[in-house]
């Protein structure tokens, strides 16, 4: 084989392996992914790469225990199993709730982006469980206190602490405190 042909073969191999790496991550278009996957049963190098990519990812995530014995056990057991021949699976629909919720959220997300994009430099609102009532209504004290509406503080704090909690009912009263040292 000439040098040129060698180079051409290597380049094709490198490209195949690049596609394999992308396919491993689920980042390849359908046609190319199907092509790569169809080659896998005959391509020992690709199978080797697949194994290495799995191990590298697991090792980086702290999950690299050596299971070569387990792997061998599983493959030996598989070899002894009667080959499964099952009909092509029907694509079952997702349960209605999840499908509807997922679709609704996606639709809402894109709507939000197009209607009210958040500019990078502009400070936008931070999330808070928006209060549905002014808590001071429950407390009954001098009208001057109305300026110190505590509900937004509670909401902002609750949003951090609990994520999904509503605002608690509060007993609030005016007091006299000495100022802090300056």
């Amino acid at each position, binding site marked *: 084989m000439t040098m040129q042909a060698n180079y051409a073969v290597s380049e094709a191999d490198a490209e195949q392996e690049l596609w394999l790496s992308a396919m491993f991550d689920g980042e390849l278009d359908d046609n190319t992914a199907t092509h790569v996957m169809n080659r896998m049963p005959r391509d020992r190098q690709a199978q*080797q790469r697949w194994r290495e990519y799995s*191990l590298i990812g697991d090792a980086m995530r702290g999950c690299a225990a050596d299971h070569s014995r387990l792997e061998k056990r599983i493959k030996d057991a598989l070899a002894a199993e009667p080959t499964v021949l099952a009909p092509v699976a029907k694509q079952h629909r997702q349960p209605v709730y999840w499908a509807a919720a997922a679709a609704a959220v996606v639709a809402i997300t894109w709507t939000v982006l197009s209607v009210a994009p958040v500019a990078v430099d502009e400070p936008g609102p931070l999330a808070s469980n928006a209060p549905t009532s002014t808590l001071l209504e429950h407390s009954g004290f001098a009208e001057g206190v109305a300026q110190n509406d505590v509900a937004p503080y509670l909401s902002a704090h609750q949003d951090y602490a609990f994520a999904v909690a509503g605002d608690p009912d509060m007993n609030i009263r005016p007091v006299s405190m000495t100022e802090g040292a300056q």
Partner: protein
Amino acid sequence: MSEQDIDRQLVEKARQGDKRAFELLVEKYQRRLYRLLSRMVRDPEEVEDIAQETFIKAYRALSNFRGDAAFYTWLYRIGVNTAKNYLAMRKKSMPTISDHAMNDEDEPDERLIAHDIATPESELQSKQIAIAVNEAVESLPEELRSAIILREMEGLSYEEIAESMGCPIGTVRSRIFRAREAIATKLRPMLDTSEDKRW
């Protein structure tokens, strides 16, 4: 084609009689499954038994796998149920406080920890693999290191990595591939695999 689509295609191939396709799924998920099962069961040999049984059960039940869930989720549920049945049969469980409290001898605290406990030989091999991978990652050029870390540790998509690194998706694809190749080159002598051996 997403990762879940890849898994589904492999399942489909396995359903059509291609056992090697199922072996690819074994390779991809065996360590993760082992780790999760070891949260439930202390004895490493029992964890291996359960993991093997899980994969075989999954293979036999391939016709029942519905494409509406991720393969790993389905595999994991089979694993959890298998482990629970196993433990129920042997009347063992995770160390409860009562188990601990009634022991007369002082046992080391590690007994309460359920993680990848292995034989001394394989434990050494595991550590060596982990060290080799981490050293290889550390010695990568910065752009390759960032790309592989964002992918494997942070689980970002190529698009997200491209945005994060300010480069095209094609560059991300190439960097991740080159990072993997560089790490694998250092790993291969330890795995004792060659092109000629069937894995």
